[in-house]
Each structure stands twice: as C-alpha cells, then as structure tokens.
C-alpha cells in the first residue's frame, strides 16, 4: 500500500478526531467543574445534529443553511442544557455517583425517544454549501474540503477553550469554583450561575460536534450511544479533565479507527480498536496519558 494513501487516511482520521475532541471536551469540562458524568451528553450531540438538519432544510439555501445551522443549533442545545442544569442536575450534585449516572441515563432515554417522536426514525442529512463540498489535492490524493474545515475548527476550539479558562475573568471564576466552590460563594460569587454556564458551554460543544458530524455523515438515532462510548474511551485514554489529553486521545482514536478501516485484517473490527487502545493504556498508565492519580 502506497505511503501517500496511508498518510491521507491518517489525516482523515485526524479530522474525525476533531469532532470527537469537541464533544469529549464538553463532557470533560462538565465533569471537571461539576463532577458529574453526563450520559446524556451523547444525546445532546445527537440533538444538535437533528436540529442542524432541520435548520438546514428550513433555510433551504445551501450556503446559508449550513452556516445557519452551525451558528444556531449549538446555541439551542446550550439553552436546553441550561434548562436541564437548572431543573435537574442542580439537585443531584451532592448525591452518590450511581444516582447521578442513573439520572443522566434516564435523560438519554427521554431525549432519544423525543427525537424519535419529533423527527421520526428517518435517516437525515445536512447539505453542505458548494464551498465546502469539493475536494483538494494533497499528496496527489483527493481530500475533502470539509475535513480541512474540521482540521481548523478543532484546534480553534482547543485554543479558545484554553484561553477562556486561563485568561478571562470568567475562566478564573470557573477554576476557582473547581478548587473551592464554598470559598468562592463566600466571596459573593453566585456559584450556581457558574455551574449553569459551564454546563451550557459543555452542551454547546456537544451541539457543535453534532452539527459538524451532520455535515459529514448521515444523522440517525443510534448516534448518541456511539459517541458517548467513544467519549468515554477518550477520557480514559487522555485522562479525565485534561483538554490536552482529550485532544491527543481524540486524534489517536480518530487515526486508529481510520487506519483500521484501511487494512483488511482490521477492517471489520475498526470500531473496536479504540477500546483495544484503551485497554493498553490502562495496563501501562491507568490514569490516562495526561491524567493525575485520583483522590
């Protein structure tokens, strides 16, 4: 097999990894601040994708449709997330993990059924504008322009999130809430607002990932469990709560799956490969690549 084919396939994998990173970083952010693992994160991603197809169809004009969806759908998901945080999640932060997981699991059932009822069981698509639907030549191979866009958006989100947390007042407040929410509250900051905002931001990332996947693959009802399990692999490999770790792990998973489909030996089991990587990491470095030992 020529080296160029392998390299290009790896690059396709990196671009898939970008979507995975965006979704997983949302999960990781919410966990880092709220200490809750949200099973429904994958459902919000799916919701983002379905909303995107509707906005795309509604705006009809292809170029406006995609960008409109890219702008609006994540915001809608973030808004739904904020409502969920205020209505449900807020009540369970002090509860044990099992109850938290079960609550979010209950939500995945509800959201999945709501999506099925609202959109029907059909497989939907988001049409790309002409600008993004072509290909360019890299290393003498065709490479989708859309994947290039992903390769730009992924790092942009990573840098944006990092900058937000490190340099803005809001980011400082979030980090303070992670270190000691009580003291922060005593200083007159409403930590509940911070929690809602962080949760909404995490959901915005899930929604954004959903729109981005809708531009590349068909949108269907099984998306939620597929992505959430992959997100879990990301956080185990990268280390929960570490953005850099999530980025590395997402790229790793994207590349491994993408290359896995290339070789006949692994083609049937490409989807299982991330878990093989995960098992390996667990044996060598149980805390993940960049994770710290748990308390």
């Amino acid at each position: 097999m020529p080296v160029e084919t392998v390299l290009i396939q790896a690059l396709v994998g990196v671009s898939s990894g970008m979507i995975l990173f965006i979704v997983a970083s949302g999960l990781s952010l919410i966990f880092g601040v709220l200490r809750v693992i949200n099973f429904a994160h994958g459902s919000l991603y799916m919701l983002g994708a379905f909303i995107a197809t509707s906005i795309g169809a509604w705006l009809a004009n292809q170029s406006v449709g995609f960008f409109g969806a890219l702008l609006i759908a994540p915001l809608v998901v973030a808004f739904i997330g904020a409502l969920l945080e205020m209505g449900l999640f807020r009540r369970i932060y002090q509860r044990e993990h099992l109850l938290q997981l079960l609550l979010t699991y209950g939500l995945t059932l509800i959201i999945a059924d709501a999506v099925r009822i609202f959109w029907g069981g059909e497989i939907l698509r988001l049409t790309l504008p002409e600008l993004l639907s072509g290909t360019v030549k890299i290393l003498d191979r065709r490479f989708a322009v859309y994947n290039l866009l992903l390769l730009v958006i992924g790092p942009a989100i990573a840098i944006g999130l990092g900058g937000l947390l490190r340099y803005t007042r809001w980011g400082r407040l979030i980090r303070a809430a992670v270190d000691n929410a009580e003291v922060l509250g005593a200083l007159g900051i409403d930590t509940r607002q911070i929690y809602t905002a962080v949760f909404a931001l995490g959901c915005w990332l899930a929604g954004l990932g959903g729109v981005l996947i809708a531009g590349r693959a068909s949108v269907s009802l099984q998306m939620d469990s597929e992505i959430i399990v992959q997100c879990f692999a990301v956080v185990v490999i990268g280390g929960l709560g570490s953005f850099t770790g999530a980025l590395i792990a997402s790229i790793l998973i994207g590349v491994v799956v993408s290359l896995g489909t290339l070789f006949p030996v692994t083609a049937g089991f490409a989807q299982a490969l991330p878990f093989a990587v995960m098992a390996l990491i667990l044996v060598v470095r149980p805390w993940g690549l960049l994770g710290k030992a748990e308390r």
Partner: protein
Amino acid sequence: MRKYILPLSAVILILLGVILSPFQAALASEMLIAGLFALSLNLIMGFGGMVHFGHAAFYGVGGYSYAILTTRAGLDPVLAFIVSPFIAAVFAVVIGWLCVRRTRLYFAILTLAFGQLLYILVFQARDLTGGDDGLQGLPIPPWLATEQARYWFTALVFLACYLLIRRIAASPFILTLKAVRDNPERAQFLGVNVRRQQLAVFVMGAAFAGVAGALFAILNRFVAVNMLFWTTSAEPILGSLMGGIGSLIGPVLGGGLLVFLEVNITRFTLYWPMILGTITVLFVLLAPEGLVGLVQKWRRK
C-alpha cells in the same frame, strides 16, 4: 414468621406454574430472569459498591455461549447450559482485571466501554454469532418443550441461584467486600487485597448474569445482539434502583416489575423509553432508596 417467608415464596413460585397460562408463564419466566440478572448485578453494585455499567456483556456472553455451543458445536443443551456461566466468568476475569484498576466513576466508565467492546465484537463476528440477526431456533432439551416446563425450569434455577447468592451475601467474603466498599483505604491497611476482592465479586456476578443469559436463550430459543447493548446493562441497575440497592429481594422485585411494566405498557403505547426514562428520573429524585426503602420508611412511621 420471617423464616417461613422464603420457603413459602418458593412453594408459591413452583405452584404458580400450574395455574399460569402459556403467555403468563413466559412472562413470569422473563420476570424471574430479569430478577436474577438484577440480583447478580447487585452482588457487585450493592455489596461491592462498584457502579457497573457493562453487566449486559456477561448476560449476553452467557446467552451466546449457550447458543453457539448448541448450534455451532452441537453440544448437548444441558451441558451447554452448565458451561455457559463459566464462559461468562472467563470473560469477566479479563475485563474485570482491567476495570478494577480504576475505582468509582472511572470504573463505571470502563465497564461501559468494555461492555460495548464485546457488543461490537459480537455484532461483527457474523460467522460465529449471526451478527445483527442473532441466532434463532436454538435446540433445547425435549423435556422443556412447553412454556410451563420452561417456567418450572427457570423458577428452579432462579431459586437455586437465589439461595446461593444469599449464602454468598452472608459469607466473610462479602463482609470484607462491604468493608472495602465503605472504606477502601482502611480495608487496604487491614491487609485486604482490594483489587482481588473486587475482581472476585465481579467474576461471581458475571457468572450469575451468564446463568440469566443462558436461561433467556433457553426460554426464547434465540439470542440477539442487543442482549449485550449498554441499555441492557442499565435494566438491572434500574431494577435494583426501583427495588432497593443492597438488599436481596429488592433487585428481584424491581427487575421483575420492570419487565412486567414493559410488557404491559408497550401493548398500549410506543413511548415506553420515554416512560422508563421518566420513571428513572423520578426514582432518583424522589425515592433513591427504592421500593424496599420506601416500605422501611413507612414502617418506621
């Protein structure tokens, strides 16, 4: 009075087989299997305090072992039924060994991820497992031809497992495990090998889940790939939640009740997942101790 409850329930359970219609007998068998499945999870989750979100994998391995051994290998059904839980246990040794390297939430995530790994493998290994078609028309022993016979068989196996699990729950092993659950550091300082204890109960629970899976295969004469899907893993957790985590009878009642509700509600509406999700959320918010907890609270008043 209390000591008569168990033998009395056992007798009722067996006698029920006489009066139930074939449909009711099949439903009752399903409920017992769900109860056993929830009970097997409760060993790990209730006594070990380990949140296990991949238990369906071992339920599925139990069912598929029976199916593959009887169809592909032509093994005698009875022998296949006996062997199946052990195969589930072997899988659990490998997966459990990896999962107990992390604790609490991380453990939950790992069990879910590895459970999905087995799901994908079963889905893809079409030649062996039939892929998404599953395996149908499984051979069963001739003396299990009627629903009634299968009910009795299920009830007897269930009772045997229940008694065994009750014995295990009262053993020093489980007492040590509870110590680990309540304070892992302290248990470790006392010389308990925490990971080994957790792995042992993980494998034990998986074996009982394997029994439940093999029973399912015999009862329905088919196995399907969503036996291993993560939503199936959630069923015994929800059953345990509804019944009461950490008790013996709670998960059995909860698991059975869940099947009963599903069968009866899906007859009227297509929105079962929505209803189940809502029930789950309500239990978490309003009755986290489950029905057993509610009864205890009511009694204390």
